[in-house]
């Protein structure tokens, strides 16, 4: 019973979001008169920021000031479920409410929901690859895609399904098409580890906790700006893929493969919260009416490449796009994700390069680091914690450093009973002791050497390095040495990104540089709890 409740909440977490980013809580958006009678405060997926010109017009037309606060998918859902969202927001706007609907407590917090636009999740393949595998201009099924993926005829990138609705929708679509019987997935089917599923997910070579990072990484790799191996395609919203084609930054366009046996579509319901004031509900009503007028619907379609929600505004797309049934039971969704993370996806290999210098003394430093590791090891029972913990089959290496790198400790988590191995990682984290100086770059190079050995022994994994430091480099080699090292890395190491945690007094500029050099990104733990940042990074590894 309890487990189901937890699962439902966890699922929720996934949900809300959509498409959105796993934690890119960048600056929000405020449009409309500053002195408006009413301000609608909206908790939104970050992808909604692309509507800015439309929303500015809507604010002017309705006299409503609109404030969009972009929030990570999991965080947004957590906020709705707990009721925290309604203390400082009037509405939510994510790509789907389906997951929220699995939870009666969350459902009751939602008021009127109005679909504004839609976009299905599809596969975009570089044109030359689509032609090579023979998929240009003809219907293709998920089974064919899985078979080609199994034969490694192509590779693709996809967002983490616990961080973003596009990745989650893809997992649902693939499982429903490959192991489903024609109706919504059953629990037994959701737990399936059928070869076709392993084949399909085995071809994923790029993962990301946010849709924005995924697109950037794809473009950088395909244009050679990033040293990593180019990826052949992306699974994402059709609107995102069309937007990439329109942006003109790709060397060749993406061919959109809409599997003939079914897709899952996001419908972007703009939803007022049940607790909103009468003024806010009225403002929501006026905004929604405005957004659904034919002219505005056309403007949305033109600007975002999403399809209008209002029928008849644009000619219907040609062909019959079959919509797959979306599971409506929390335990089914929970089982599907657990199976994906622990058994189906390519396993991760993550090397944690952890600063244990003297400056890490104190509960808010070394204590926070120990808690962050314990959280990933399973102590975090929150929504977000459930699917961000260390996963079945994952290889985790802890490489603490101070004046020099310590000897690495490597753990491999069992696929079926993940608990004991996760506990061992937590124990190793609890034993970390602060002392000495800060040899960042020497330790980073040591991590790459560890990665090289591990890749040679077991190549078929996502390999990443997480660097956490609370100060500037005080020992060993410097950034310039690392730049030289990065440029001369062995081919197998060129696709290994460094995700840098900026913490304490660390040099944010140098961390940006390291992330840029390696195709990673930085995460700021000066403004967010270290444990939350460690959890966010999980969407990328």
């Amino acid at each position, binding site marked *: 019973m309890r487990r189901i409740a937890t699962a439902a909440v966890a699922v929720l977490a996934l949900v809300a979001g959509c498409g959105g980013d796993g934690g890119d809580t960048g600056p929000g958006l405020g449009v409309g008169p500053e002195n408006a009678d009413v301000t609608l405060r909206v908790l939104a997926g970050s992808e909604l920021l692309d509507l800015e010109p439309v929303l500015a017009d809507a604010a002017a037309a309705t006299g409503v000031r609109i404030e969009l606060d972009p929030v990570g998918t999991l965080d947004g859902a957590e906020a709705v479920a707990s009721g925290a969202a309604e203390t400082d927001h009037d509405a939510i706007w994510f790509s789907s409410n389906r997951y929220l609907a699995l939870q009666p407590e969350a459902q009751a917090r939602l008021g009127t929901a109005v*679909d504004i636009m839609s976009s299905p999740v599809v596969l975009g393949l570089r044109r030359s690859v689509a032609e090579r595998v023979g998929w240009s201009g003809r219907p293709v099924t998920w089974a064919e895609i899985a078979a080609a993926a199994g034969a490694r005829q192509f590779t693709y990138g996809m967002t983490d399904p616990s961080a973003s609705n596009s990745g989650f929708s893809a997992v649902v679509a693939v499982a429903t098409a490959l192991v489903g019987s024609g109706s*919504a*997935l059953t629990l037994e089917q959701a737990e399936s580890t059928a070869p076709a599923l392993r084949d399909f997910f085995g071809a994923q070579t790029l993962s990301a906790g946010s849709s924005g990072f995924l697109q950037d990484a794809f473009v950088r790799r395909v244009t050679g700006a990033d040293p990593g191996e180019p990826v052949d395609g992306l699974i994402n919203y059709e609107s995102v893929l069309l937007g990439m084609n329109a942006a003109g930054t790709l060397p060749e366009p993406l061919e959109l493969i809409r599997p003939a046996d*079914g897709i899952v*579509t996001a419908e972007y*319901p703009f939803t007022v919260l049940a607790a909103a004031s009468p003024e806010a509900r009225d403002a929501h009503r006026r905004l929604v009416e405005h957004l659904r007028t034919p002219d505005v619907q056309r403007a949305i379609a033109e600007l975002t490449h999403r399809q209008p929600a*209002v029928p008849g505004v644009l000619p219907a797309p040609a062909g019959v*796009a079959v919509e797959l049934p979306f599971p409506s039971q929390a335990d089914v969704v929970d089982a599907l994700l657990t199976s994906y993370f622990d058994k189906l996806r390519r396993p991760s290999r993550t090397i944690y390069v952890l600063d244990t210098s003297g400056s890490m003394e104190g509960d808010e430093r070394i204590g926070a680091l120990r808690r962050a590791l314990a959280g990933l090891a399973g102590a975090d029972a929150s929504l977000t914690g459930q699917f961000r913990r260390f996963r079945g089959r994952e290889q985790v290496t802890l490489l603490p450093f101070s004046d020099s790198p310590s000897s690495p400790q490597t753990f491999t988590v069992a696929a079926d009973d993940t608990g004991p191995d996760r506990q061992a990682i937590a124990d190793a984290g609890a034993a970390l002791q602060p002392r000495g100086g800060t040899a960042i770059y020497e330790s980073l190079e040591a991590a790459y050497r560890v990665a090289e050995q591990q890749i040679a022994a077991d190549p078929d994994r996502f390999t990443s390095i997480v660097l956490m430091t609370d100060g500037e480099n005080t020992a060993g080699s410097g950034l310039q040495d690392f730049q030289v090292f990065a440029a001369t890395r062995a081919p197998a190491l060129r696709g290994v990104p460094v995700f840098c945690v900026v913490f304490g007094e660390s040099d944010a500029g140098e961390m940006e540089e390291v992330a840029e050099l390696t195709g990673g990104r930085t995460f700021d733990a000066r403004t967010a709890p270290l444990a939350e940042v460690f959890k966010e990074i999980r969407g990328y590894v």
Partner: protein
Amino acid sequence: MTAPAGRRSGRRVLSWLLALVLLGVIGFVVLRDVGGRDPDPPAVTVVTGVIGSEKLAFFADERVRAVFAAHGLEIRADPAGSRQIATTVPLDRYDFAFPSSSPAADKLLAQHPAARTYAPFSSPMAVATFTPIVDLLTQAGVVAPGSTTLDVRRYLELATSGTRWDQLPGNTAFPARKDVLLSTTAPCQSNSAAMYLGIASYVANADGVVADQAAVAQVTPSVQPLFRDQGYLPSTTEVLFEDYLSGGMGRVPMALVYEAQYLAEALSPDPLLPADGQLLYPSPTIFSRHTLVPLPPGATGSASCSRPTLSSPRSPPSTASGPPTPAPSRRRSGTAACRNQPRSSTSWNRRRSTPWREC
């Protein structure tokens, strides 16, 4: 969820008729509340209601608004699933509730007693579909050749055996690897799906109303998959109908909607029905009586803390438990009249006794 203003700027005939009927109703509500003040010259009185979503197009119609405005009324209507209106929607913010059926209104009345209710119109349930689907259903014996009647018994045989579209013999028009299932709304939230549950359980029970636990146990295995196997369900019929209009055959091959929705679209000056759109009528069927319930000023929202539950043992509804359905004293007629089986009806009780655990 619905179409506040976007499409249907013109649904001439129905809208006018409905506006006239409703005007009297809402006018009465407001005048009562403001103490019968002289309506001339009309000072604008804002009346806020929560309505079954399928009526939003009506309330959003400019001409309807104009008629109300001429009488000093501005109606602000929030759409919601009719079952949500009766259970989870906090009603203390509204002057009236307007669910799509008398059972839903009865459920609401148990929490919010009102002196009387108003049922200005009713609509039978209908299946919005496409010509290729009708052809397939005809070949499968679910629709008689040339008929617009969908034989629910034959349909249930197909659906409960888990038949997929691509398993129908000779199907080249729609070979989807997807079960032959009517698309519906969520029965816990929306009246139209609850009506469908009534029809299906009646047929599954050998043309008898499901009135006791034994019957429930007997029909559940054949009725539950009709909803469960669809997966996620929209909470309002307007969303479902819009999906039918814009998503096409692949998304919603057959949608259980109100006949009025389809007709209103057909009668609009700029109808958006698919070129090969078709309307079928389930047999047996049910008429849904849209019922307006005036709410007292500052109605306490006890419903806001109750979860939708079809199996809850709470206060009995005012409708009778079995056919024929006697009319509650405050209204002129009963809940839902069955077209082909006049002795049957879908009363709230029967739905409540269905062990619909997801609710």
